[in-house]
């Protein structure tokens, strides 16, 4: 007793005639309302299949024919939404208010709306929308415009394809695929945010992956002769140091090989969420992305088979060290005309000015 497909044509009879026949108890309308009310009492978005509807014991004699008639009418009114699952028909309840809205739409608008709704939080690209609805460009544009004006849909910017016009229901929050996660604001990369987050993370990891030997004695002793102010300053500095992390320094020493405190992804995530640095709660996957970036920047490294992170001890441009090699510190290594420089050519080592500069430096 299955319904083969929702598209199956049920002979269109006059509704009232069909309804009056079996039950003398309730009018079809009442029954319909009862069915709707029963379904609406479920949580939103619940999908009902045929058996579930029968189980409500509302349909007289569990007649399939009647059930179909009722649901069809409900769907027509926009109160039920017909769907298919595994080739069988099933239904979803639509809120009355929404149904009214839906009913006010023109045919094209309703079509467009249904596809946009179907795309849910991922949104749908206008080009795809057009090919799916098979509408003419202007017709579709008009429909989209009017839907936008009714505040039913909105245009969103997809971070991967910023140039694609993409729509989604106005009430939905775009998914992370669309927004690009917390690192993007309105589809634009928030470089400052990324920078701040990575600075924090880096310091956090440094503080936990290297040993910072205490300051040598003499600096300690001198503190006794310090003025109150100086001492407080020092204390503040130390507190700052001890806070969430530390700065890189040449004096850092490696941890004992048995040390298990190198931060892992979940630790870093928990720490950064605890810090209140970010307005939104960071997910592990997002922090993983950030940590990856720091690794690619050569500032952190993965140890213990990628399970934990450790700071790289020496990084270009910090501590006053430029990690240069023979090539990059040479005038030729940075020379804009390197390729053309040749003995007897217009640029050559004999007359080279960069060299002159370097030699005189």
């Amino acid at each position, binding site marked *: 007793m299955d319904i083969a497909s929702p598209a199956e044509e049920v002979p269109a009879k006059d509704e009232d005639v069909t309804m009056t026949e079996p039950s003398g108890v309730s009018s079809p309308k009442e029954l319909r309302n009862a069915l709707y009310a029963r379904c609406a009492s479920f949580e939103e978005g619940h999908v009902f299949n045929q058996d579930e509807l029968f189980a409500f014991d509302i349909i007289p004699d569990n007649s399939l024919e009647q059930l179909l008639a009722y649901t069809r009418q409900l769907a027509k009114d926009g109160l039920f939404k017909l769907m298919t699952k595994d080739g069988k028909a099933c239904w979803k309840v639509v809120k009355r208010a929404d149904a009214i809205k839906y009913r006010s739409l023109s045919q094209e608008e309703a079509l467009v709306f249904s596809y946009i709704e179907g795309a849910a939080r991922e949104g749908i690209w206008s080009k795809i929308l057009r090919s799916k609805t098979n509408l003419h460009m202007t017709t579709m544009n008009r429909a989209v415009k009017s839907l936008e004006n009714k505040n039913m849909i909105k245009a969103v910017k997809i971070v991967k394809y910023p140039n694609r016009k993409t729509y989604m229901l106005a009430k939905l929050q775009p998914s992370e695929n669309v927004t690009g996660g917390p690192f993007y604001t309105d589809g634009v*990369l928030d470089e400052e945010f*990324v920078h701040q987050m990575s600075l924090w993370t880096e310091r956090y990891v440094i503080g936990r992956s290297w040993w910072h030997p205490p300051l040598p004695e003499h600096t300690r002793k001198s503190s006794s002769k310090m003025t109150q102010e100086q001492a407080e300053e020092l204390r503040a500095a130390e507190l700052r140091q001890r806070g969430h992390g530390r700065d890189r320094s040449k004096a850092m020493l490696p941890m004992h*090989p048995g040390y298990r405190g190198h931060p892992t992804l979940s630790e870093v995530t928990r720490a950064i969420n605890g810090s209140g640095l970010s307005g939104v709660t960071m997910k592990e996957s997002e922090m993983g992305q950030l940590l990856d970036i720091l690794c690619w*920047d*050569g500032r952190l490294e993965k140890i213990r088979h990628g399970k934990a992170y450790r700071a790289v001890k020496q990084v270009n441009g910090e501590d006053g060290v430029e990690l240069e090699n023979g090539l990059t*510190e040479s005038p030729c290594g940075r020379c804009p005309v390197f390729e053309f420089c040749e003995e007897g050519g217009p640029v050559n080592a004999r007359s080279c000015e960069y060299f002159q500069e370097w030699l005189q430096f």
Partner: protein
Amino acid sequence: MSRHAYELCHLLVDDTYGELTSRIFEVLLFHGRLSLPALQHQTHLSYRLVKHGLAVLIQQHLILWYTSSHDHQTLYEANTANAYSLVRSGKYIKVAAAQVGEFAGKVIANLLLLGHARVGDLVQAYKAGQSRSTHDRLAANGGTPSTPLSNSSRHEEGRIEEQNATVEPIYGMLCDLLRLELVSPVHISHFRSDADNRIEAEKVVPKPEVYKARNEREQNAQREAGIKRKLKEWRYYTHGEENEAEHLKKGKKRLHQDLETGRLEKRQRLYSPLSQDVIGTTEEVYQPMRGEAHYLDNDLILRVNHAKFAVLIRNDHLVDLADRTISTSTARVYAQVLHALEPQVQDCRVEPANSSETDAEADPSSSPQISTDELVRAIKDSSELANTLGKSDDGRLDMTQFDHPKKRRKKEVINEDQGTIDIEASFDEEEDLSGSDEEDNVSDVSSDPNEVNGDADFDPNPLTSLPHDPHRDTIRSHLLVLTIHPFSFLHHLPKTSILPERWMIDFPLLTKNVIHHTLLETITSRHGLPAARLTRILFDKGRTDEKVLCSTSLLAQKTMRSYLLPLHKAGMIGLQEVPRDNSRNPQRTNFLWFFDPERCRVKVLEETYKTMARYLKRAKMEGEKIKGTVEKASRSDVVGKEEEFLGPQELEALNAWREMDKRIWGEVSRLDDLVACLRDF
């Protein structure tokens, strides 16, 4: 090698040995192998001069030659590797001085200049103390260098003032050098190119039919192995006869005859003045050192062993890297490891013994290794290593991770919720430990990890079981720190039932990492951090299209492009076009960026050669500017009394030039470090 490398070699030869030599060398560089008449034709020099020049170049190991057995024609070829090594003279001397002593440094300096020398002559020269004249005598057939050496070896040149040195220490020192492989006996193969050496080896090694094997393929494979062994033997001058005997399963006597006849035949075939294999010796089985006494055959001819120096330079580089990336104390321990392994490492680049052996790398026994005990003995004092490692606040340490993998697999339970790795020794494990004493199946790693095999052979915690020895513990900790590092400085082989705990260096992997690191450092300082980020992403992810690259790198598209394009232009990364259909329309094409470390390495290496050549050109030109003064200053009557003979202006110019020269050569040496890393390691 490229044009720039050739240019560089030419400049180096020119700078060290003067014009005649460099002219011949240059022709050989740019024309390839030439016979004597052809060479004469190309250089426009007289027969006598060409012969003379060739003699010098051969003496200095700057050219290779080979006389074919077909037409008895001798062909000459430039030895670019040795020519390049001239730039390292200063480093060689320093290394030798550090390893054997000041005096050894001087001997190396002289050997570098002379190419090779007889032990007897060297000893005579130093004994008599009349270095100048001996030097001239030694170099008589080579002609004295016409310009002073430009690097530090120049200062050593000809000024050997070991007036009172007696013979004994000289022999001793030479023995040390030989033992450390810093010098090696000269073998005729050292004058031949690789291809020629192979031809010769093929002649010497028995034909495939001789080998006992099931089929032709195996025979060929065995012969191939034999050839490889022979080549290696020549190269390092080791005696592989015994191995060969074993290999062929022949009587030793028989083999000897074979070898002898082989050698005799070769002698007849060779049309050359240097008709013996080991030049200068006639003994059949050659023993350069006899017994314990410091004695060397006076007729033995020595040369500098470049391969070993490369190893030592690499060691220094690695220690320096460990110092920068880990800590000075750890680097010190590492230096000891490397030093202890030195005798086991003859060459930086080791080909796998058998290329068909796919699991060659899985076999740790082939790599140089050392046991903890040996190391602990080698490091006398670890007091300065105290307090050089940090511990967590609660002092909890977990050493189980360094147990045998089988053991570890059971013990480690990753607790994702807490984000830490907890160790849970379960009950049944405890039982295993007590109940399987008789099991002895350690090497069977492929067996089911859950099976209870050989666990008792592994100490659950080696630290606790040993009598507490802080010296050993400290060293061991530092070694473990080295193993954790992503470069894989060191590899830990936990204790097994048969073998004690050992440490090994997987040089191919380590050098791959080091080269990669160097390339990225170059990219970072030339193109900026984001460029390095993009390159690393490309390396990790392979070919990547721009969109994905943009979202992975968290860079705005514009910013990203501003880094990608210069990188591409500089040849550091590549761009591949993959058309989506046949139309080849750019709009229907995927553009994929990629990073090929090998390509990048070659490119950076080329640039380094070119840069070095630029420096030398400049140095030469600066020198020419004040040629007169320099010449005057290097006159024997002026040396040491510059102030008397030179005017204040001349003096100033001279000093300025010297300063500049020093700077240029210092920079060239830094560039050479890069070449060493990218090419030789």
